């Protein structure tokens, strides 16, 4: 009979806990928005954070509350955007995006300060005197971006990474991985890009690399739409204004514009 009392004690404690929890979940339930659930189902579930929210759940909640626009999910692309728009009953325009690496240099044309033989990673190499390149802004080429890409869209060939347009979804994970912040997420239908990130000026820039922007402002002068401007000794393109006439490309003596 000695077993009866402990069983009763345990049973009562369990019962109190169980009843307490079920009452709590009933009275303090937070209604989950049906719309939010449906929106969440549309999303790819990669939780990459490219939309600017903590994950697919966070983004679905923000869209359901009207705080965010549908179609900000780069991995989902147009299919996801269309599905989300259908649930919300709105029409949206989506803009496909792509990663752009703003450096035209490669081991052959960019001069080196020293020979680096340490750990083969850009973040480690950039800690040693801003990296082995004469140009403190340029691509080190160990491919931290390629390692960060979950889709395998970046390949490093001869010490120079390149983005495969067909695979890239513009999630921006590579942009975070680059210690030189060379990668930006730009519209896929861009007509012209600046392939340099060097914000220094003077003869040093010209010597370090043969495809560096010297901020001569020739491109700015020939541009008819005012899309290209030199800011902080570097040409910058406003993609919404660029009509792709190609005059800046002809004017640039250092092949910075591609």
């Amino acid at each position: 009979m000695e077993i009866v009392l402990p069983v009763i004690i345990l049973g009562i404690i369990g019962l109190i806990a169980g009843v307490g929890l079920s009452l709590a979940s009933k009275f303090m339930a937070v209604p989950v928005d049906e719309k939010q659930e449906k929106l969440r189902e549309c999303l790819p579930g990669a939780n990459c954070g490219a939309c600017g929210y903590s994950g697919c759940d966070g983004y679905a909640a923000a869209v359901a509350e009207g705080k965010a626009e549908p179609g900000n999910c780069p991995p989902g692309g147009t299919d996801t955007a269309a599905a989300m728009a259908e649930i919300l009953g709105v029409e949206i325009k989506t803009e496909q995006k792509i990663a752009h690496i703003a450096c035209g240099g490669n081991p052959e044309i960019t001069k080196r300060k020293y020979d680096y033989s340490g750990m083969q990673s850009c973040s480690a190499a950039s800690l040693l005197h801003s990296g082995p390149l004469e140009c403190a802004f340029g691509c080190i080429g160990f491919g931290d971006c390629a390692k960060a890409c979950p889709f395998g869209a970046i390949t490093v060939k001869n010490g120079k990474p390149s983005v495969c347009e067909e695979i890239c979804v513009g999630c921006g994970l590579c942009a975070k991985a680059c210690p030189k912040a060379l990668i930006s997420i730009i519209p896929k239908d861009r007509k012209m890009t600046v392939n340099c990130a060097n914000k220094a000026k003077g003869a040093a820039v010209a010597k370090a690399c043969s495809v560096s922007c010297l901020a001569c402002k020739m491109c700015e002068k020939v541009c008819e739409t005012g899309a290209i401007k030199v800011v902080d000794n570097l040409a910058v393109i406003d993609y919404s204004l660029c009509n792709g006439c190609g005059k800046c490309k002809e004017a640039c003596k250092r092949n910075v514009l591609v």
Partner: protein
Amino acid sequence: MNNTTIASILLAGILTNNMVLSKFLGICPFLGVSKKTDTAFSMSIAVTLVMVVATAVTWPIYNYILAPDYTYLETIVFILVIAAIVQLIEIVLKKYIKPIYNALGIYLPLITTNCAVLGITMLNISENLNFIQSVFNALSAGLGFMLAMLLFSGVRQRMESADIPEFMKGLPITLVAAAIVSLSFLGFAGIGG
């Protein structure tokens, strides 16, 4: 009842008897979520919160219901109560303090089965602490857990850009680093009793 002061309880819990580095409890989150400082911090806050609340509930249960005849029910009752409390805290946070719920995220339910939480409630009983002392002991254990997590997340971030031999990458080097950090906490032995 002994007459240990609150200050010495706090000091001992954080440094000398550090939950993770001296008692080797809660190793799972210590290795699992210490990769980034911000997640390590969220986890530690959740652990501290649950430790204090769990102690505040289990201490009266032990001393007024189980003692003196049914003390052998300690483990099973504590597991039951802690699991229920964690669920309850989650429901309450979700309803009333949404930002904290979002910040703690998945860490709160993970703590349901955390040995550090069960460990501190049972240690409080076995060390014959009174209610106030128990609550402060739980708080200090939580803060000690936080210290260990933050220190170790720093170590792990440094290891990210270190040249580690291929066969040591990942868990092996993490365990070695954890052992060295733990060894360094031996230096605190003797402080605060």
